[in-house]
Structures are given as structure tokens and as C-alpha cells.
């Protein structure tokens, strides 16, 4: 019996046809073994798809996997208990970003 994530890989590859939502970062896969149905998130160990995914079972039985990126910045700042800098405060403190445009 293949491991669950190997089965997911199989269906992920099937979903990678032109126009597939997989290309937009959302992967639709068919229902896989019962081990998947019982959880809300799943962690894949495959080099290409490593990470934690939120799992939603669609009414037609397919599973929707989406990368679980965790808390929003708003939630993080609420936990910290601070406030974000204004644009003026940020510019005063850190100046302008470099021109390489990396991100």
C-alpha cells in the first residue's frame, strides 16, 4: 500500500493538465484513502510539494488541497500586541528598498 502522500502525488500530477487549477496554486485531487478524510491539514514530505496543506472535502468527493500558510499578519501583530509602523515611520527608520526588485 503506497503512503498517502505518494497517492496524492499521483493525483496531483493528473491534475496538472493545461487549465488545471493546480497552476494557480490550488490542487484538486480525487478522494484518497480514509487516512486523508479524517484530518483538516496534511503535511507532505515530497521534495516538490513539501509542506502543510489545508484539506477540504468537496461535495462531489474530491479533495481540495491548498498550502496552509498559517496566521495572517494581522493575527501575528495582534499576538505581539504592537502596531505597524506608518509609512513615514518606516521610511525614516529603514529608507527605500534596493532597486533589484527581488521582493
Amino acid at each position, binding site marked *: 500500500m503506497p503512503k498517502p502522500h505518494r497517492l496524492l502525488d499521483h493525483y496531483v500530477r493528473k491534475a496538472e493538465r493545461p487549465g488545471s487549477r*493546480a497552476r*494557480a*496554486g490550488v490542487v484538486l485531487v480525487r478522494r484518497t484513502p480514509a487516512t486523508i478524510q479524517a484530518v483538516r491539514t496534511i*503535511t507532505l*514530505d515530497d521534495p*516538490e*510539494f*513539501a*509542506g*502543510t496543506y489545508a484539506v477540504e472535502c468537496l461535495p462531489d468527493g474530491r479533495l481540495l488541497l491548498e*498550502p*496552509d*500558510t*498559517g*496566521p*495572517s*499578519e494581522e493575527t*501575528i*501583530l495582534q*499576538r*505581539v*500586541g*504592537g*502596531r*505597524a*509602523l506608518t*509609512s513615514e*515611520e*518606516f521610511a525614516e*527608520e*529603514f*529608507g*527605500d*528598498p*534596493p532597486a533589484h*526588485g*527581488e*521582493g
Partner: protein
Amino acid sequence: MADRRADRRLRVRFDDEAFALDVARYRPGTPARVAAERAREAFASEGVHRTQLEPCAAEGRDGTQLAGRVKVYLPPEAVEPPFRMLFSPVIVAGGLELAYLAFGVGHQPKGSRARTVYEIAHRRVHGRWPGT
């Protein structure tokens, strides 16, 4: 006169949930995992030296919009550091600190579907993936 701001270290507050999700994308012992864990250990105890921080681009080439956030390159001693840790500067009790925002690779290898640290940070900031 030297800029006194450049001489200081900024305290870093790590979000356990966000950090755990970010490092879970890498296996224990891999360069990425080691870089993240070492950085957290160092930053949590010593803070980040102001000179290590670089502002993120307001409009990145990849469509990410991260104005108002800063980053460090990791490992810091590497000639071409492959990893980045991003922070949101915050005012806490009147002082400037950094809130952990994301960790990951700066550029994914060609053909990879994995997300860069900038895309993950963009999603946490804006609630959607860049370009969607």
C-alpha cells in the same frame, strides 16, 4: 556623525505557529531548516542587528507587494544566501521591534511549484496569493 540607529539591535518576537509551518517545509538537518533554527535562536536571544535588515520591495518582480516589511538574508555568512527571513516592524510599548512574518527561499529553482518566502509573506499580509 554616525547614524546611531545603525548601531542597535532590534528585538524579535517569533510567532510559533507561523514559524513551525515555515520550517515544516524542510526536512530536519537540511540547510534551510538549520538556517531557520539557528537564526531564530540567535535573533530571539540577541535580536537582529539593524545593519542586517533590508526593506522589502513595494512591488517585487514576482508580483508580491511587501512595502513596510524588512528581511534578512540567511545564512548571514554565505556569499549568496539562499534563504530569507521576513519581519513586520512594530511599535511595542513605544519601542521598535520586529514581528516574525515568514521564512523560506528567496528564489525557487526553475520548474518548482513551491512558494517563495515573498509569496508566503504576501499571502499572510494580503490574504491571497500574488496575482490572484
